[in-house]
């Protein structure tokens, strides 16, 4: 990433924006939503918040124009230059202009307004073009981006956080408090009856429920869970993780994705990671871990892979002989593939799709079947 010469940035964290006019290519509410969503992309990973003005001078003035439009940088008709924006500052600075000779769309059949707006607003916040081809701030438009699962690249996150830092960890950072705010989580709704999780782990007495590029952070003392992007806490971690577990005695959470795993302690990803899961003793045939849990008393960690599980001795740091074993034999009632598991109040809570199984490890039986999101008290 890079910033503009002189590294201009906003000296305040609450910014105003105004949509000065509209393209005729899209309904107004679609334009509004695209701009809100584009602002939210940056708000999720910074302390910045945005509010909309209906009139007057806003920090970020957003307009559609064709050809010469009063700033000595005329647009050029269809194609080629799509938009431009100015770095932070007074007057025209911070403003974003969109070439209305483009065919603006809310999908990828034309020029997607959200993608271009997210890029231009990156300029409005102080990011210059990136040479990283994966970055949103790369100057060339990429129409093939999967809109439903859009996410900033690590390069973009590093860039914007070099200017404004990460979001405050104590808030869910609701960036644009508008009617489309639930889109902050993409298609995620914590009260969706069909909600499933990628992984779940305890962390210093709280419970982290991972899903795609986000996680819910549930304290047992607070009813409402916080909702955060993984990158806002641990920028180098991947999204869509497979498994996670805490080793309380080491104050460490281990995060698994594919054949790699990371160790985190609080906000810090530990050095020397990622490592291969095969360094733990898995055979080469194991490509990923579905779920994991560490028993703090027995100092044993259980790794669940398809219909089997392995047991790892945390003291000897080696896989125990006699494994893998069938999950269904030793955890009766937990018959299906496990998405996630964690321990609370002496019970193991296994998650499979939208179902959750409360398992008593002493009685070796399932004591309750719940919805996966029961912890959110919907």
């Amino acid at each position: 990433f890079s910033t503009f010469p002189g590294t201009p940035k906003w000296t305040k964290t609450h910014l105003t924006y105004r949509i000065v006019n509209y393209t005729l290519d899209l309904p107004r509410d679609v334009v509004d939503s695209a701009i809100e969503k584009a602002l939210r992309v940056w708000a999720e990973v910074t302390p910045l918040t945005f509010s909309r003005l209906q009139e007057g001078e806003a920090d970020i003035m957003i307009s559609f124009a064709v050809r010469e439009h009063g700033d000595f940088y005329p647009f050029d008709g269809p194609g080629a230059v799509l938009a431009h924006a100015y770095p932070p500052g007074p007057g025209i600075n911070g403003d974003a202009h969109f070439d209305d000779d483009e065919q603006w769309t809310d999908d990828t059949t034309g020029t997607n307004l959200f993608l271009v707006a997210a890029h231009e607003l990156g300029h409005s916040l102080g990011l210059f073009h990136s040479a990283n081809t994966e970055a949103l701030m790369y100057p060339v438009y990429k129409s093939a981006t999967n809109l439903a699962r859009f996410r900033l690249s690590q390069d973009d996150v590093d860039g914007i956080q070099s200017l404004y830092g990460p979001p405050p960890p104590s808030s869910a950072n609701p960036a644009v408090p508008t009617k489309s705010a639930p889109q902050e989580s993409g298609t995620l709704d914590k009260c969706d009856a069909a909600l499933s999780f990628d992984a779940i782990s305890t962390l210093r007495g709280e419970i982290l429920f991972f899903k795609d590029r986000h996680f819910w952070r549930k304290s047992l003392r607070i009813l409402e869970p916080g909702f955060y992007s993984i990158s806002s806490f641990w920028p180098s971690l991947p999204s869509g993780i497979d498994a996670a577990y805490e080793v309380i005695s080491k104050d460490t959470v281990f995060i698994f994705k594919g054949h790699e795993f990371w160790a985190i302690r609080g906000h810090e990803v530990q050095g020397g990671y990622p490592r291969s899961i095969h360094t733990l003793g898995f055979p080469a045939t194991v490509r990923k871990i579905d779920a994991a849990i560490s028993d703090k008393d027995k100092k044993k960690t259980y790794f669940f892979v398809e219909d089997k599980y392995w047991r790892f001795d945390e003291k000897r740091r080696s896989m125990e002989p006699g494994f893998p074993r069938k999950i269904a034999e030793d955890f009766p009632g937990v018959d299906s593939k496990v998405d996630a598991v964690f321990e609370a109040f002496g019970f193991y809570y296994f998650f499979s799709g939208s179902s959750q199984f409360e398992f008593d490890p002493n009685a070796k039986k399932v004591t309750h079947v719940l919805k996966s999101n029961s912890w959110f008290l919907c």
Partner: protein
Amino acid sequence: YPLDRAAKDEADNMELLERYLENFYNLKKDVKQFVRRKNSSPVVNKIQEMQKFLGLEVTGKLDSNTLEVIQKPRCGVPDAGQ
């Protein structure tokens, strides 16, 4: 004149490159006549700068990959600091 098709295509491509380098890589107007001096070092340097920035193979020439990328829609903010 009239140019044959291939010559016209090359001229069009060089004009596109010239505008691209002017708009996004601060190619100075005083080397604008580089179509006839396309191997001059300022032009080659600018092409190399562009290719490096855009993640292309750095050849210093308007090859097919470079031509393809500069024909794609993009943001109007220059890649080179002003």
